[in-house]
């Protein structure tokens, strides 16, 4: 059967090209792989190969012709004993579907975000549950141990997690209980062991990958995002990555620029991840247990300064907290303070101080940044008409910016003042004690911001 050879698209952007040179002439035999012509594209001159065996029956476009549109017939290949005239009329150029098919209004779907969940103010645990004062450190350890007891596919790996008992003592006693098969000290190779963890999650395990701090995870971020977060989508839903990446995040104390960065906004911007940044010990425990069970990759951002702080933790056999559910720490009527992680300590202290001065602040702890419980924030802002966000990360392209824009979109008419953010300063973290204090946000900044938006 005679077949037409069409002007090929030789690059993703090519629409037309120059037929620079024919390397075959009419009557020549060609076999698959033989170079037939040289074609100049928008990028380079490229060789064009035969894809089938046959004889060049006719050349339809002379060499030197410029601006030959992709898919224009340029030659006819015939089989032995056939003539080029066996092609009746020149076939209409074939074109890719996007150019001739009008897909009905895809913008509608593109803009239509999945429905946001309603406000859920149910308590995290039944009233009357016995509470035990526990540090964040022990709460995290308990969560890991409970989940490892419950599920043999859960294991933990990272630098110094086993024999050293954790660089920050989160894995105290874990090696002793679970043994070296499930508690694995790694060499100092963040890029490698993060990737290895993701692979293990595809192989049916539930890894907990500890980063000694999140600063070092920048060496591994490719695997967190390209390998873990995107694979479910890229596989059309076949393969998810049930893995938890965890460790201390944000400023500790006097460790300077390379060891003091808050990654909340970076990871929270990535579809496919879940991002948790707990403040209290109860949340640390309940959310880490949820994270380990979650079939998606979870970025769990802890804080070194909070590790030693004690909070009430409910004494329950299996205490979990769902993702995407903010906690209202105190109710108020004059302003909404929105925070998470260590920012909450500034927010709560400021609220106490403000209360003494007759300003009633509602304080919301987001707890998870992806999914983000905007419903609780919006409901509160509709009541208080004012909002101040509090975080320690850099101010540019921050979580606060995102929250502010969501409030404008959902509650603009309710606002009596601009949404203000209290964030870290737009500088690398300095070492000097006084400068470090200045670089972080503070209770005073929160109070000042509240006074500004309440005009008091």
């Amino acid at each position, binding site marked *: 059967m005679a077949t037409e050879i*069409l002007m*090929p*698209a*030789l*690059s*993703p952007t090519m629409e037309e090209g120059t037929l620079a040179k024919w390397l075959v002439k009419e009557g020549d035999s060609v076999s698959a792989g033989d*170079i037939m012509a040289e074609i100049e594209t928008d*990028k*380079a*001159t*490229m*060789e064009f190969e035969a*894809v*089938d065996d046959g004889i060049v029956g006719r050349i339809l476009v002379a060499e030197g012709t410029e601006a030959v549109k992709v*898919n224009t017939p340029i030659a006819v290949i015939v089989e032995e004993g056939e003539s080029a005239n066996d092609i009746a009329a020149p076939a209409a150029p*074939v*074109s*890719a*579907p996007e150019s001739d*098919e009008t*897909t009905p209004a*895809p913008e509608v779907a*593109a803009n*239509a975000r999945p429905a946001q969940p309603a406000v859920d103010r149910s308590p995290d645990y039944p009233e009357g549950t016995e509470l035990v004062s526990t540090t964040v450190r022990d709460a995290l350890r308990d969560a890991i141990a409970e989940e490892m007891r419950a599920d043999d596919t859960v294991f933990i790996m990272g630098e110094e997690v086993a024999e050293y008992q954790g660089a920050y003592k989160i894995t105290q006693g874990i090696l002793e209980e679970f043994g070296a098969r499930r508690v*694995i000290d790694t*060499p100092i*190779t963040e*890029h*490698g*062991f993060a*990737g*290895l*963890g*993701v*692979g*293990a*999650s*595809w*192989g*049916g*395990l539930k890894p907990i990958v500890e980063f000694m701090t999140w600063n070092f995870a920048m060496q591994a971020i*490719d*695997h967190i995002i*390209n*390998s873990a977060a995107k694979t*479910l*989508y*890229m*596989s*059309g*839903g*076949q*393969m*998810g990555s049930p893995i938890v990446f965890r460790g201390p995040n944000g400023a500790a104390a006097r460790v300077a620029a390379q060891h003091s960065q808050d990654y909340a906004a970076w990871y929270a911007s990535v579809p*496919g991840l*879940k991002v948790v940044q707990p403040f209290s010990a109860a949340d640390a425990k309940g959310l880490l247990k949820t994270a380990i*069970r*979650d*079939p*998606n990759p979870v970025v769990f951002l802890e804080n070194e300064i909070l590790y030693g702080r004690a909070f009430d933790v409910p004494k329950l056999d299996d205490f979990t907290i769902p993702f995407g559910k903010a906690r209202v720490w105190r109710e108020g009527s004059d302003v909404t303070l929105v925070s998470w992680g260590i920012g909450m300590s500034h927010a709560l202290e400021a609220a106490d101080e403000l209360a003494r001065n007759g300003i009633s602040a509602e304080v919301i702890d987001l707890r998870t940044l992806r999914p983000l419980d905007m419903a609780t924030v919006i409901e509160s802002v509709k009541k208080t008409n004012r909002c101040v966000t509090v975080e320690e990360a850099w101010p540019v392209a921050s979580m606060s910016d995102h929250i502010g824009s969501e409030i404008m979109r959902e509650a603009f008419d309710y606002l009596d003042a601009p949404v203000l953010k209290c964030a870290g300063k737009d500088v690398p973290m300095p070492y000097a004690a006084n400068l470090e204090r200045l670089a972080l946000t503070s209770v005073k900044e929160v109070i000042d911001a509240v006074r500004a938006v309440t005009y008091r």
Partner: protein
Amino acid sequence: MAARRASRNLVAPKKELLKYYRDMLLIRRFEEKAGQLYGMGLIGGFCHLYIGQEAVVVGLESVAMEGDKRITTYRDHGHMLACGMDANGVMAELTGRIGGYSKGKGGSMHMFSKERDFYGGHGIVGANVPLGAGLAFSDMYKGNKNVTFTYFGDGAANQGQVYETYNMAELWKLPVIFVIENNQYAMGTSVRRATKSSSFWERGTAFSIPGEQVDGMDVLAVRAAGQKAVKHCRAGKGPYILEIMTYRYRGHSMSDPAKYRTRDEVQKIREERDAIEQVRGRLLDAGATEAELKAIDKEIKDIVNASAEFAKESPEPDPSELWTDITVDA
């Protein structure tokens, strides 16, 4: 073409040779068709063809057992066909249609089949290496006898994470076979212009990982080396490195100006060492008839043509697919 290099004393029964011939031919014809569809604008973006390297994956798949895993780079169409994935689903992914393995959301470089233990299809050079070691880790953890074939290129072999992975793989005795498909080029950079090392497999010795260099144009040589590697891994002795010397006939991707090597270089290898021609020669020696081989050619052509038809006719994904498969419900 007269690619009949007598290769050592490697022999295989006719039935086996027929299977290799068929599997390699399927890859070659499939790739040729993909190139054609690309030229017609039906396939977009990057599209990396495997033509010339067929013996690597076909040789190694011949030593795999049920439950073994494989993971590779963006040059992945051949690996998918060789492990038994359906040509229709692969081609439809190339055209970005709902009938593709990833519903059209992954494309040429990102395809997966949990069912066939094929773990991608990865676009970041080097990233699939620790991922493959992690798959092997899961088998070791569960106490399985399975191995993971982790394929990567000579260019990828210069990535730091490869050596992080070698270190951990040997340390923990992971059942992973590192398959370096040394096709002599990383895009336009020849091996010689990227490293002063004379071989890649030898780098494993720094981590105490054994390995060897293999003639990747000879499917039986690949098979023999694969048998050794698999035996080592299944015995719990840890990883093994196969540096498989191969060659890609086509450009790096579809838009390759081909200025970094001569046409003669490509032509010479095609003519003298082509893997499919070698098996064809062996088959004729073993008493196969031209008619027998023609029948296989025809069967392959039909499969490939049908896959192209399927890939053209399968609809684009519904716009609602934009929002699915981002996370799974707990």
